[in-house]
């Protein structure tokens, strides 16, 4: 249910600005990750440089969101849903900043890889990236739409990401052992796999915070799902059945 407007319209405006800024930051983090992977796959150093440079914007947005959140706390003393929304935005911005940092790490390793002769297996990264990017996109959509079910599906999708990460990482690890001429590149690719997995983990953090923001139920670290979202209403922990 969409909450009605506050009597104090400036409160609504401040909350709206906080949410819009968080979404802007989310789109930026998503774009940085996309640029960095495209840079690696298309052997385009410029795209990697772009991702590294744009990370500065994400850092500034994180500071801005913290500042906006604190201003709202000081000026309007939010409670209940409003308080969870402010805290949620501030926590989401921290996760987004870290996602952008992962993109920077990937971009720096990609530039090293691009200096060397192309290795055909690098394309295997794309499958892992697609799964991680889908998680991030769903987490952002869930945030924008305040969609609990989509947020819970992100948590479920992380299992698929783990599987793909394990498979891809194992492939590059084996190559690292056998293809000694390119061992540095394969080592970098193993690290890139790990960072993409980390992106999924951070997207999952965002999803968990969305569930808390909407339902006031903390599902982190094995917390129970909202009763109304479990299939049998048993409020048991485990995979959400929606």
């Amino acid at each position: 249910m969409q909450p009605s407007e506050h009597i104090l319209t400036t409160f609504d405006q401040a909350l709206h600005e906080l949410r819009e800024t968080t979404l802007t930051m989310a789109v930026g983090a998503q774009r940085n990750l996309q640029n960095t992977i495209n840079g690696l796959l298309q052997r385009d150093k410029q795209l990697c440089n772009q991702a590294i440079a744009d990370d500065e914007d994400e850092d500034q947005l994180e500071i801005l969101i913290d500042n906006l959140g604190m201003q709202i706390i000081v000026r309007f003393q939010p409670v209940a849903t409003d308080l969870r929304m402010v805290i949620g935005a501030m926590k989401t911005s921290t996760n987004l900043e870290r996602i952008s940092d992962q993109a920077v790490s990937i971009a720096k390793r990609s530039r090293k890889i691009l200096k060397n002769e192309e290795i055909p297996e690098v394309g295997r990264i794309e499958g892992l990236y697609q799964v991680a990017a889908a998680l991030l996109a769903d987490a952002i959509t869930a945030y924008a739409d305040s969609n609990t079910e989509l947020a819970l599906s992100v948590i479920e999708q992380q299992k698929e990401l783990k599987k793909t990460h394990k498979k891809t990482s194992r492939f590059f690890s084996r190559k690292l052992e056998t293809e000694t001429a390119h061992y540095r590149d394969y080592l970098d690719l193993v690290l890139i796999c790990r960072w993409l997995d980390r992106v999924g983990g951070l997207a999952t953090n965002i999803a968990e915070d969305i569930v808390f923001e909407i339902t006031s139920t903390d599902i982190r670290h094995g917390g129970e799902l909202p009763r109304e979202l479990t299939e049998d209403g048993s409020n048991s922990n485990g995979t959400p059945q929606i």
Partner: protein
Amino acid sequence: MHDTSNALSALPKATKKKKSSTVIEVDDIGFSYDYGKTETLKGISMEVPKNQVTALIGPSGCGKSTLLRCLNRMNDLIDTAKITRGTIRILGQDIHAADVDAIELRKQVGMVFQKYNPFPKSIYDNVAYGLRIQGVKKKSVLDEAVERSLKSAALWDEAKDRLKDSALGLSGGQQQRLCIARTIAVRPKVILMDEPCSALDPIATAKVEGLMLELKKDFTIVIVTHSMQQASRISDQTAFFYLGELIEYASTSKIFTSPSVQQTEDYISGRFG
């Protein structure tokens, strides 16, 4: 005048049936200011736990102050007012029972008002007033009670050297704490507070709030407040009223982080029209 010999003095004995943590039981109480034509309180039921601060919140006219005044029968002073249904039990005793005298009840259920109202007497005489009314004359007993009450009200250090000075010379915050000292001097079981800080500056408010947190170790406190921040700072339980009905009653933490009823959320977050 009722015979009070077995009324409030018997209150502690009457607690057997109820768990000891409940001090006030309000059961389906209805109240009217116009001989019962319209109900200002519409079937309120709630239990107030011992040694906790319970906040009553809600927009003006919702009935929170009316309920507060029902708890020590202050509304008896209004000719047209009447309880239309239900019961209020304090420590197990029905406060409207025939053998309960309102004056005796108010010794057990003290009240602090929105506008501090010390008597135009000395600080000492203000605090000793209730005990003198009860017939206490021995100076050493009064001295001990005045010191204990002023210390409990965090006013002793500021007032000990001017006990004979007029209470009206104290600052607003000090006058309100003096009123609290006057209330606790007769050792009530419950203290009712009707917006006790609304006329005080932030420093005086903080002192009174700090005092409430200390006093709840010895007393059960029910407070009416319009300040959401004050309710969230000092109360353990919060009850939200609207148009004479109790909409939600839960722990303060629950009310201010995840209220169950949309009306509560709308009110506490400033969405209420």
